[in-house]
């Protein structure tokens, strides 16, 4: 598929944010990106007309009940079968922040045995409350995650976070088993690290929310659904990075671009 033919759908809902930034990132890469309200998608659009689906960040429906819980269930009863088909066909789905919460609540992540009826993980409230700042994550995918293939293995990326509920958890009685499966299936994509690149090991500040095993992002076993708490679209252009004025020559792009580039290249090659 040629780049200018690729259509990305950025679903927005009451309370989501950064959809415009995400659209700008895709457009910069030459992709047709449409920001469409979730109700309009339900009523008037065919999900399967699109090649990329993005659930953006934010606080859909005021984070009532739990982050993204309402939106996830609404997607389930309005477009559930199309959504499953989209995923089963290998089309890329990116969930950023609230979008990650949605993919967990809807059972697509971790999705060990395909989509689960009930969530198999949770993004609980942060141990230190709402956090909005830059963090570092290390890329751990060994190649399974199609949406980060342009990111070198072990690369440390700087991206901002902005959330109050991002503490990744597995059920306590199964967390070791589930973690083993994440590694076996190559589903662990990003972990929070310290400035020297070593894992945060739960240490507050470097691990901004108390996430278990410093987990910042995971993908499904097939590698075409990625959820992450940091916002790559807020780290797309060089002038979005916090230190660009201090550099002699500002970088053209930030670390977030690698993720969007990966998504687009995957679609170009695969379809």
């Amino acid at each position, binding site marked *: 598929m040629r780049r200018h033919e690729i259509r990305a759908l950025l679903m927005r809902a009451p309370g989501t944010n950064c959809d415009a930034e995400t659209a700008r990132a895709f457009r910069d890469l030459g992709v047709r990106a449409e920001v469409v309200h979730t109700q309009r998608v339900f009523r008037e659009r065919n999900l399967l007309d699109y090649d990329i689906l993005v659930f953006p960040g934010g606080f859909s429906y005021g984070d009532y*009940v*739990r982050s993204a*819980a*309402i939106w996830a*269930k609404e997607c389930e009863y309005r477009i559930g079968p199309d959504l499953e088909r989209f995923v089963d066909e290998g089309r890329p789905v990116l969930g950023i922040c609230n979008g990650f919460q949605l993919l967990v*609540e809807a059972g697509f992540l971790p999705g060990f045995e395909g989509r689960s009826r*009930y*969530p*198999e*993980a*949770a993004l*609980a*409230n*942060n*141990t*230190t*409350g709402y956090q909005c700042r830059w963090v570092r994550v290390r890329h751990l995918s060994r190649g399974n995650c199609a949406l980060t293939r342009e990111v070198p293995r072990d690369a440390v990326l700087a991206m901002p976070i902005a959330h109050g509920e991002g503490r990744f*958890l*597995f*059920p*306590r009685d199964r967390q070791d088993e589930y973690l083993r499966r994440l590694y076996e299936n190559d589903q662990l994509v990003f972990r929070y690290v310290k400035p020297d690149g070593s894992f945060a090991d739960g240490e507050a500040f470097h691990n901004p929310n*108390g996430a278990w095993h410093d987990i910042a992002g995971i993908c499904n076993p097939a590698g075409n659904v990625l959820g992450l708490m940091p916002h790559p679209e807020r780290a797309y252009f060089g002038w979005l990075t916090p230190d660009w004025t201090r550099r002699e020559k500002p970088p053209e792009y930030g670390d977030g671009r690698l993720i969007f580039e990966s998504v687009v290249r995957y679609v170009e090659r695969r379809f």
Partner: protein
Amino acid sequence: MRYVATVYVRLKPGYSDPEGETTARALQGLGYRVIEVRASKAYEVTLEADSREEAEAAVDEMCRRLLTNPTKDDYRFEIRELR
């Protein structure tokens, strides 16, 4: 018939509960001999059902499908008929 269910949702034991911990510290600061606070959320659900059993089964499913994330939340509910 109409029923009213009061549903209580809280984090399962063993998970840290920042809201409860922060509240406990404040209560201790006020001089109370507080040992622990666990924050919980309550919903009052009014629903139609043909029997009490049907209402209970429906509320139980609501809890598992939307009101809780079974990974981290515990729930319990009380149900009464609305006359």
